[in-house]
C-alpha cells in the first residue's frame, strides 16, 4: 500500500520526520559533518562557552590596564586596575563595602519582590479579561512612559528621604513595565489550551490557575529577569540622589573627594552583582522549566 505525500484532495501533508522509524536503514560508517563555528545554528558546549567569555573579560581588563600603563589618560580620571583593586580590598577589609552592599541588596530585593507580587496577578488579570484590559492597559501604558527620573523629586516630597522613597523609585521603575509584560505573556497562551479547560468544564478561576499561569510561567520568568536588570539602575538612581548609605551613596561621596578608584570599583561591583543575579535567574529558570527541553 503506497501513499504519496499528498492527501486525497491534493493538499500536501506535512510528514513528521520523527515518526519514521523505518527510515534509518542506512547503517554505513558514522560520519559527522563538521559544522563551521560561525554558522547560525551551531551550538557550542558550556566549557568552550565559558572559555570564550572569560577571554573576553580578560581582554577587557588588559585593554584598561594598557591604557593606564601607557598613561594615555590621567590616573585621576581613570585609575589603573591595581589601584581599583587595592581600594576595593581596603574597603572590604574595613567592612564599608559589605555594609553598602547589604543595604543595597535589601532595597532591591524588597522592592523588586513587591513589584513582582503586584504586577504578576494584575498582569494576568489584564491579559485574561478584556474588561480589565480596557480599564488598566491604556493607563498603565501611559504611566510607564513617564520618566522615572522625573519622579525622584516628587517621591521625596511625597514620602521624604527615608527607605520608603528608595522602594518607591524601584517599584515605579519596574511595576508598570512588568505588569504589561506579564499581560503580553498571558495573551500568548494558546487558545487551544484554554479550550481544553473549557471542554473539561473548569471554572474561569481554575483555568487561570491551572492552565494560564503554568503555561505563561516561563515567559513571565524571563520578563522578571529583564525587569530585575532595570531595577539595578533604579536602585543606584535612588541612592545617588538622597541617601545616607548604599552603593549609590558611596559613589556620590567618592565623587566629592575625587576618589575615582572607589567610583570605578563600586561600578564594577554593581556590574558583577547584575551579572550574578541574571545568571542565577537563568539557572533557576532552566531548572524550573526543564520540561521544555528535549532529552
Amino acid at each position, binding site marked *: *500500500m503506497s*501513499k504519496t*505525500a499528498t*492527501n*486525497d*484532495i491534493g*493538499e500536501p*501533508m*506535512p*510528514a*513528521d*520526520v*520523527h*515518526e*519514521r522509524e*523505518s527510515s534509518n536503514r542506512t547503517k554505513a560508517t558514522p560520519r559527522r559533518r563538521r559544522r563551521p563555528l560561525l554558522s547560525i545554528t551551531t551550538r557550542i558546549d558550556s566549557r568552550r562557552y565559558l572559555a570564550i567569555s572569560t577571554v573576553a573579560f580578560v581582554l577587557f581588563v588588559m585593554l584598561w590596564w594598557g591604557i593606564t600603563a601607557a598613561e594615555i589618560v590621567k590616573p585621576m580620571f581613570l585609575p589603573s586596575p591595581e589601584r581599583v583593586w587595592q581600594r576595593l580590598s581596603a574597603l572590604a577589609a574595613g567592612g564599608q563595602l559589605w555594609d553598602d552592599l547589604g543595604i543595597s541588596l535589601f532595597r532591591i530585593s524588597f522592592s523588586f519582590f513587591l513589584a513582582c507580587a503586584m504586577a504578576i496577578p494584575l498582569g494576568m488579570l489584564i491579559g485574561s479579561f478584556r474588561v480589565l484590559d480596557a480599564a488598566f492597559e491604556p493607563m498603565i501604558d501611559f504611566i510607564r512612559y513617564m520618566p522615572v527620573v522625573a519622579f525622584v523629586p516628587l517621591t521625596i516630597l511625597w514620602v521624604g528621604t527615608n527607605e520608603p522613597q528608595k522602594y518607591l523609585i524601584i517599584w515605579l521603575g519596574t511595576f508598570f513595565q512588568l505588569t504589561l509584560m506579564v499581560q503580553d505573556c498571558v495573551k500568548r497562551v*494558546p487558545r*487551544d*489550551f484554554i*479550550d*481544553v*479547560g*473549557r*471542554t*473539561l*468544564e*473548569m471554572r474561569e478561576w*481554575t483555568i487561570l490557575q*491551572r*492552565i494560564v499561569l*503554568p*503555561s505563561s*510561567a516561563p515567559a513571565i520568568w524571563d520578563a522578571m529577569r529583564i525587569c530585575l536588570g532595570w531595577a539595578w539602575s533604579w536602585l543606584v538612581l535612588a541612592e545617588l540622589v538622597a541617601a545616607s548609605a548604599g552603593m549609590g551613596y558611596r559613589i556620590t561621596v567618592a565623587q566629592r573627594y575625587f576618589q575615582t578608584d572607589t567610583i570605578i570599583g563600586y561600578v564594577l561591583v554593581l556590574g558583577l552583582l547584575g551579572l550574578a543575579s541574571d545568571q542565577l535567574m537563568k539557572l533557576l529558570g532552566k531548572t524550573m*522549566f526543564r*520540561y*521544555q*527541553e*528535549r*532529552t
Partner: protein
Amino acid sequence: MTSSELTLRGVGKSFGRGNRRNRVLDGIDLTLADNEFVSLVGASGCGKSTLLSLVSGLQDYDEGTIEVGGSLVEGPGRDRGVVFQHYTLMPWLNARQNIEFALKAAGYSRADSTRIANEHLALVGLSESAEAYPSQLSGGMKQRVAIARALSYKPRMLLMDEPFGALDALTRRDMQELLIDVWQHHRLTVLFVTHDVEEAVFLSDRVVVMGRYPGCIREEVNIDLPRPRKPEVTGSPEFAELHWRVMSSIKQEAALAS
C-alpha cells in the same frame, strides 16, 4: 433504528458584522446514532471545524438547535471529549499527569485519577512513556495521549478535528487502527473531521460530504463495509467504489462553487 445521540436541526452560523458578515454554515441537519462513527469531509474552508466547534460548545450557533443525548448544547461539557488538530498537551505535565489533569477536573479522586490514567495510557500503548514530557514525545505519541485524555473521563461523544493531520502516512495508518480499536472498546459516538477521503471511508459508518458558500451538507454516503476492518480492505473494489463516490461528490461541489 438505534436512539439518536447527536441531532442538529437547521443550524446556521455567521462570522463578522454588517456588510462584512460572512455566512459560514447554513441549514445543517444531521443526526448521529448512538455508537456511530461519522466523518465530515469537504473542501478547505467549507466549515468543518466550525461545525465541530458548535457541537463541542466552544462556539455559539446563531440558528437552529443542537442536542446531545436529548439535551440542548449550551456550551462545552464533559459529555463531549474533544481532540484538537494542534497538539494541546500541557507541556509542564508528563503524559500521565496530562490525563490525570482531565480526571481531576472531572472530579475523580487522586487515586482513581492515577489508576484510570494508567489504564488509558495502556489503551493507547504508551505505558512506557508515562513519565515523558510532551517535548520528548513524537507527534503521533502526543495525539495518542490527547485521545487517551479525551476518553479518560468517559464522554458520550468524541469530537475530533483532523487529529492526524500533522502526521506522516505510516503513523496515520497506525493511529487510525488504534482509534478503531479504542472506539470498539469504549463504544462511543464519534464525529470526525478530516480532508483525507481514504481515512474517512476506512474509519466511518457514514461519511458526510459538505459543500461551500455557505457551508451545507451535500451528501451522506453510508459505508457498509463489514467490521472489524483490516487495513487490506482499502485495496478492495468495494472500498474503491465508496472512495470514488465520496471523491466525486467533493469534486462536483468544487466545480459548482467555482
